[in-house]
């Protein structure tokens, strides 16, 4: 019998869950996520979190400044893994919280919740290093197939990881996508997690990321009008100030990984939306070094960092 409170308590101290526990958590979580539509409708108040990319100590910081789950409702916009040193602990914690409080925390799928991407950008390597096998990576990436693609807050704020697609004009079109699979390299599902807004264009353009599209203000206005929404909330793009508001307040990017890759020097933010749909960008910097440990880079070592490594790649 799975004791989620014990799991969460371990994870908050940055202790790994046993492989079989990860397996059980992922299995149960998949059952729960199966019931979620490609577009989940939720209500304010809710705090929206952008990319965290395995920066575990900054996730703890988010809970400190935004309030702990379930006292605060959370919507995470995806990209939980890769690049940071603690992707495993981060996704383990969020998975357990989702299982424990399914109506208090919502998890979207980001472009990094993918087998192909995690094999290149760090999560796979981290799983191998910490568990000496690829099983945990498989459990998590199988679970990623079940994460929902979008959320609408109070029927007016459309939330997705990346952005819009030339193949998707209405919410109904999003609802009929078969999402329970690896993210394809192109098509509507890929576009939702890879696209970026671009204020230099008005329609769709080719994305320099190699997947998804760039989209301009005309596309945004049309989408919001057709779907009776007022705003698009997304993540996926690094913001030096932690957030960015575009297109005359029609699109917002939220970014929640401060000092991204431990070297970009950027701020991060979480967006607190009240029942009156007031917005507050709670901006924060990287957790102080005294509050975090960093792993030594001398390869090997299953996990526990010794003391001072100050060299990040």
């Amino acid at each position: 019998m799975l004791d989620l409170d014990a799991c969460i308590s371990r994870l908050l101290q940055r202790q790994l869950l046993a492989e079989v526990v990860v397996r059980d958590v992922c299995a149960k979580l998949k059952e729960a996520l199966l019931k979620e539509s490609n577009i989940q409708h939720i209500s304010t108040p809710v705090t929206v979190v952008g990319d965290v990319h395995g920066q575990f100590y900054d996730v703890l910081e988010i809970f400190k400044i935004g309030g702990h789950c379930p006292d605060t409702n959370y919507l995470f916009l995806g990209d939980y893994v890769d690049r940071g040193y603690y992707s495993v602990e981060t996704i383990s914690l969020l998975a357990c919280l989702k299982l424990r409080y399914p109506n208090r925390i919502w998890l979207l799928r980001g472009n990094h919740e993918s087998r192909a991407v995690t094999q290149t950008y760090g999560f796979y390597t981290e799983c191998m290093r910490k568990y000496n096998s690829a099983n945990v990576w498989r459990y998590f990436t199988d679970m990623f197939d079940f994460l929902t693609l979008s959320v609408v807050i109070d029927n007016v704020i459309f939330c997705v990881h990346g952005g819009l697609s030339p193949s998707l004009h209405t919410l109904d079109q999003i609802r009929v996508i078969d999402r329970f699979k690896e993210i394809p390299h192109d098509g509507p599902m890929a576009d939702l997690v890879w696209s970026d807004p671009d204020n230099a264009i008005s329609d769709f353009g080719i994305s320099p990321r190699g997947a998804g599209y760039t989209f301009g203000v005309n596309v945004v206005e049309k989408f919001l009008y057709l779907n009776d929404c007022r705003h698009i909330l997304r993540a996926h793009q690094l913001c030096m100030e932690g957030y960015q508001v575009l297109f005359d307040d029609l699109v917002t990017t939220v970014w929640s990984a401060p000092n991204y890759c431990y070297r970009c020097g950027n701020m991060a933010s979480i967006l607190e939306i009240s029942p009156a749909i007031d917005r507050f960008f709670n901006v924060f910097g990287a957790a102080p070094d005294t509050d975090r440990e960093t792993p030594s880079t001398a390869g090997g070592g299953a996990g526990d960092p010794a003391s001072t490594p100050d060299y990040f790649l």
Partner: protein
Amino acid sequence: MSGLLFTPEQHAVLRAAWAKYSVADALKKQYRAPGTKPHVVTVSADVPVEVALDVLVRHNINAAPVYDASLPAFVGMVAMHDVIEYILAITTTRPSTSTVDSGVLADDELDETASTTAGTAGSDDVAPLALLEPEEGGVNGDQGAAAVDEGEVGTTASSDPVRRTRKWSFGSSTSTEPDGLALAEVMARLRDAHAVSVACIADLSERDAFMTLPATATLEQAMDIFSKGVHRIVITPADPSTPVTPATLVGILTQSDMIQFLSDHETDHPWNDLVHLRIEDLRLCEPKPIVHVKAFQPVVDVLHAMHEQRMSSVAVVDASGRLLGNISSSDVKHMMRHLRLGTLDMPCAQFVNQVKTKQMLENDGKDIVPVIQVGPSAPLAQVMRILLVMRVHRVWCTDQNPSSPQFQAPVSVVSMTDILRVLL
């Protein structure tokens, strides 16, 4: 491949279209600006290899003409593949484990023949790779300066590969007979630990010979050269009496420039009929041998693969043969500034990660897809746009059927050479 794709009449129409334009029409803007002295990056024949490499890195180009002022004449091109062969020569060589096969990849194949011809590690100490000083500010990403470098399957081999690889082995000297004066000089200088001048390695790999055309030549002449797999053409002054020196070179025309020209003219006849065709209809994604290494293999295996298979880009696959990414000589160039000998031992997957991280940081923090791929039904126009926007020289064609056992295994690769060959 049976049957012609186009009729002779269609080919004639294409040729006539290309013949209407001169090479000057396709050159990058920087070479055409009136009044300004065009700056073609060249390298002097007497500089050490490390300096030549630094020039390539700093200007973000993959090749540069080499000029010997004492002759005076251009003596060849120095390109990344020459540099890679040089790196392999001066570091401890080891058996290569790169493989080539068509489509389906079997588990653990160690190519026995490749391992015996790749050169035996000398028991002597070899000179450590010269460390380049990392420069602040990183690589110049000026799009205008980028040149195409990549090779493709089926380039004509100008020399016997077995004999060529033997040139680089310096274990027991009795089994190796360096060919030609340049090689003997290289080897002698390495043993004496003198700086090797770039003239010694220019054109060493005997690929990408120094090709020129005058500025008055037509694009039809350029296409004839490009479709044979040459990646860049040096454009010389229109007036044949002008001496050809670094200062008088008009510019460098690359395959990328041709694709850009095509993209700019895609609504013009006769290209407008062709760019909407799917790449499978143009027979561009037929299964072909894919040079690949496994993700856990060290980077040095990639360099060996580039050298032995005469490719500038090598696919990186996971244990079950799925495409994870690729490493090109451009990537090696970008990482050269921080190259330490240990980099050569790094697993490929980690090297790809480092390259992608660097690209992400230069791209405002935006991650790029691990594999730039298209399906067989992609229209040519879309593939060309991807090549241009992503600034790559090939896209992968992978098995897109999720229920196939070869899902996401590389099936084919569409390179700029392949496209240009079809359109002539």
